[in-house]
């Protein structure tokens, strides 16, 4: 009778038509004897036209769906290429509206903001380098150094917003170059490691300063360890929650159990953002404290050393990605 193709919701059309005809017959709308033959014929013709229209509609819908599906594949391919290109350090700006909220585009929007921040940061550090090399006075140095530290506050705030929108993107470190990602800790650098490398760069330090810097290094390391252990506890807890939802999945009790466990797991994932926030807070506090221990000139040298270190990591990433293979 009517073609019933499985991929389109056609099956009801023919049935409905038959049902309508049967209803019409039983309600005496159409006499079953010959006197209303013309009415029968009109009805039959109408039904045939309906069937034809429905068939055409189904074909159009099928074509549309196929078009959608091939577009979707193309989109996925493009996204993968974009990701690959970004990984290779190629900056790709979105052609869309960049003032758009983080909502749907959290990761990409953050990557763009971070790239902009980094560019500005490097500009400021170069300004500082120029000032140091030209033996600028403390006053001038202090202005530039304070500016750089305040600018660091900007990225911590931006990261905080981004973590609210997409905590896993921040945790992944995909917004950093590969070599930097090697050393990633809770979405950023380890303050304790940074201080270790600085201690040698900063001589001469007074006894008091040396003690304070060492204490700072120790404190930041203790805080890092504490946060790391909290993260491990979170992982453990999450694993236990998910494992608890395993087991024979047939009874309704188990379905409720499954949903309950999922709800708990969701709650736990929600605390990840807090850990990133605390890690960034630690970084921020450590930088401020370091600055308060050092003289202006020493702070300047520290910021230059930090920048040199990360520049090297980024350069290493570029070399690595461009290395000849095989």
């Amino acid at each position, binding site marked *: 009778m009517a073609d019933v193709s499985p991929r389109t919701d056609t099956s009801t059309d023919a049935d409905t038509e038959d049902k309508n005809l049967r209803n019409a017959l039983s309600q005496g709308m159409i006499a079953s004897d010959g006197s209303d033959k013309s009415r029968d014929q009109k009805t039959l013709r109408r039904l045939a036209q309906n069937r034809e229209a429905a068939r055409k509609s189904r074909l159009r819908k099928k074509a549309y769906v196929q078009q959608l599906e091939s577009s979707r594949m193309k989109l996925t391919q493009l996204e993968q290429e974009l990701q690959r290109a970004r990984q290779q350090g190629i900056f790709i700006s979105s052609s869309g509206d960049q003032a758009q909220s983080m909502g749907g585009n959290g990761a990409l929007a953050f990557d763009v903001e971070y790239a902009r921040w980094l560019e500005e940061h490097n500009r400021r550090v170069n300004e500082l380098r120029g000032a140091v090399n030209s033996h600028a006075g403390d006053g001038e140095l202090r202005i530039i150094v304070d500016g750089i530290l305040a600018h660091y506050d900007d990225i911590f705030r931006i990261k905080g917003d981004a973590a609210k929108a997409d905590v896993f993107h921040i945790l992944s470190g995909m917004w950093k170059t590969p070599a930097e990602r090697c050393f990633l800790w809770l979405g950023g650098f380890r303050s304790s490691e940074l201080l270790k490398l600085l201690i040698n760069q900063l001589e001469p330090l007074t006894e008091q300063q040396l003690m*304070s810097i060492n204490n700072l290094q120790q404190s930041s390391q203790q805080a890092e*360890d504490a*946060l790391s*252990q909290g993260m491990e506890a979170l992982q453990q807890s999450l694993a236990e929650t998910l494992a608890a939802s395993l087991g024979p999945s047939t009874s309704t009790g188990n379905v409720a159990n499954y949903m309950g466990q999922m709800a708990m797991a969701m709650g*736990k994932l929600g605390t990840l953002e*807090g850990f990133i926030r*605390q890690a960034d807070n*630690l970084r921020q*506090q450590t930088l401020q*404290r370091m600055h308060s221990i050092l003289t202006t000139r020493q702070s300047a040298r520290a910021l230059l050393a930090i920048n040199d270190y990360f520049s090297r990591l980024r350069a290493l990433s570029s070399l690595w990605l461009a290395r000849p293979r095989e």
Partner: protein
Amino acid sequence: MDRIRELASKKAAVIFTKSSCCMCYSIKQLFYELGASPAVHELDKEARGREMELALRGLGCNPSVPAVFIGGVFVGSTTDVISLHVDGSLKQMLIDAKAIWF
């Protein structure tokens, strides 16, 4: 609130937590690392836990746990504790309260 004050004054270092809170776990670990043995009270196991949580919020503790008291004095939650530790104040507070010796 009285229950909070009562418990907070019983030991030099006191931490209010919840058993499921992993940030609380972090703060506890920090205190153990410093050599302190804080008294830990889990609000979800306390009879008046809900009341106590509200009281802590009233003190300005956000999130309500972990809530740290040293020498009976309210110190703060995670952010405050870590900030104080970075500038060296936390250790000094613990020494002053005789929770640790060095």
